[in-house]
């Protein structure tokens, strides 16, 4: 329990990851499904950012002329988060474009409904 309280950022990010994951898996509405994807990815970025931060240190930008590494936080997770954001933006863009086309074709965002209509049209 104390571990959870000390690492509350990580705990929160794991809970958010779970929410996003289940949303992406179980949500019927396609838009909400991909919102779930974004929650899931953002949770991971929160986790990474929390890992990179070290209390009482500053971002690694040389302003006071200090080159000692002990003065700065770990910059690598920030780089990973940036890369991850780029990836998640492109995946989201692709999925939303797909949802748009599905909506134009079927007139609904409900995944079950779309599967039913698709099976009917296929003539099973």
């Amino acid at each position, binding site marked *: 329990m104390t571990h959870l309280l000390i690492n509350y950022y990580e705990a929160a990010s794991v809970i958010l990851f779970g929410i996003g994951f289940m949303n*992406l898996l179980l949500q019927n509405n396609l838009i909400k*499904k991909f919102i779930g994807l974004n929650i899931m990815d953002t949770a991971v970025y929160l*986790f990474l950012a929390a890992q990179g931060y070290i209390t009482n240190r500053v971002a690694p930008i040389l302003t006071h002329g200090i080159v000692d590494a002990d003065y700065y936080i770990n910059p690598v997770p920030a780089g990973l988060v940036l890369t991850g954001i780029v990836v998640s933006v492109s*995946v989201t863009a*692709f*999925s939303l474009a*797909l949802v748009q086309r599905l909506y134009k074709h079927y007139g609904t965002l409900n995944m079950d409904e*779309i*599967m039913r209509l698709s099976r009917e049209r296929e003539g099973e």
Partner: protein
Amino acid sequence: MEHINWIHNIPFFSIFLAMFCGIITPLLKKGSIARMVHTGMLCVVFCMSVLLLLNVYQNGESFTFMMGHFPAPWGNELRAGPLEALMAVTFSAVMLLTTVGGASFIAHDVVPEKQNFYYIMLNALFGAMLALTYTNDIFTAYVFIEILTIASCALIMAKGTAQSMVGTTHYLVISLLGSGMILFGVSILYSITGQLLFPQMKEAIIQLVASGQYTFPLLVVTGFVFIGLAIKSALFPFHSMLPGAYQAAVPTSSGVLSGLVLKSYILLGIKLIYSVFSVDVMLQLKIIDILFVFGLAGMVMGSVYAMRETRMKRMLAYSSVAQIGYIYMGIGMASRIGMVAACFHILAHAVTKSMLFLCCGQMVEDSGGKEQIYYLRGAGFRNPLAGIGFTVGALSMVGVPLFVGFISKLYFATASVYAPGKMAAVLIVLGISMVLNALYFLPSVIAIWTPVKKENETQTRISVSPAFGVCIVAFVFLNIMLGIYYRPFIRIIEMGIILLQ
């Protein structure tokens, strides 16, 4: 400058070339030029990979290539050895044959003004597969996994029909669940080891295990990463995305996706087992046993689903599920020979399944677009070449001697002897699965060679495009050649796996 072997630049240059062709393709107006650029790129990469393979095999070495000459803990690295080089050769050869042989499907099914976009995706897909093969950095692997996901979804969607959109959505959602799990696993792994490069990570993990720290996070990480990879490579309980997607896609896409894309995730998994988690840790954490059980279940269930299927492309998709099960079973045996068998099966399945999808697509097209096996009766006479290709592929998948599928099954059976406690399970399931394979492949082979009596329309022999013919002949040749002359490949794989450890 004098000690640098220029061959060592090949991994980076192949990835770069594939990605670069992807970037310049939108500037080309016509699909045919895009196709030529893609084919040329594949030929160049193929030749370079063969050169690399010969070089590393002769020297018996593996090497790491520093990107931008930053030393180990900071820079990004590529790593190549005999296993990676052999896989790059396989990927480029099969991709070349599939896209050249399936060019008529692309021309036929994809809207003309969007054909160059299709080739962009093929280039990106190929670059990402090569990157997954060569990378030595776990976050780079994640990024290329996502690129591969988007590219494969775009390939499924290329046909533009409603059915393909539904298939893509399904594929996309399941894939994203997998990559989300991988990303989270990688993040936790970074936070407990503090490294991103494979060798440094391995050292850190061995230290963690020895000191008993972070045992539970390590278990969670391994679970997340490997279940994520299993979802992406459609291991049995996570296979639901395959049939819909492969049925709706252009046959060329199905061939590439089933033959190669699924395999590149598995190859990454094998690299992770050896160069990050190490087999001992995997055995200690029991994750490898879970993969083994899922693999066994997949071998049987994939075949059972395939037997119930009346449509040929869906049947082939379920057969892929069964074959992926074989590969995971080989990995799950956790012995070197099991891994060799798994790697050889990657090769075998790549050269067989791509050919099966191409032939199936051709026969469906010749039979008026109907894909039920009932309507495909006599398809072998309408297009003998596709029929022969399909027959060879089916026999190879069933495991008839002389064809490549037999060799991998032989090695799986041999490997089981060296896997204590798993031998009975492997042999029994292998036997059941081979019988089931025969039960669904042979009826379809018989169906396509059954002459149809009442043919109202005149028997017009459908003209086969020469590219398709050449590629099918090459595929058949590869199947038989690998089935007879397999020892060098086994040796290369074995050397690669020893060097990976």
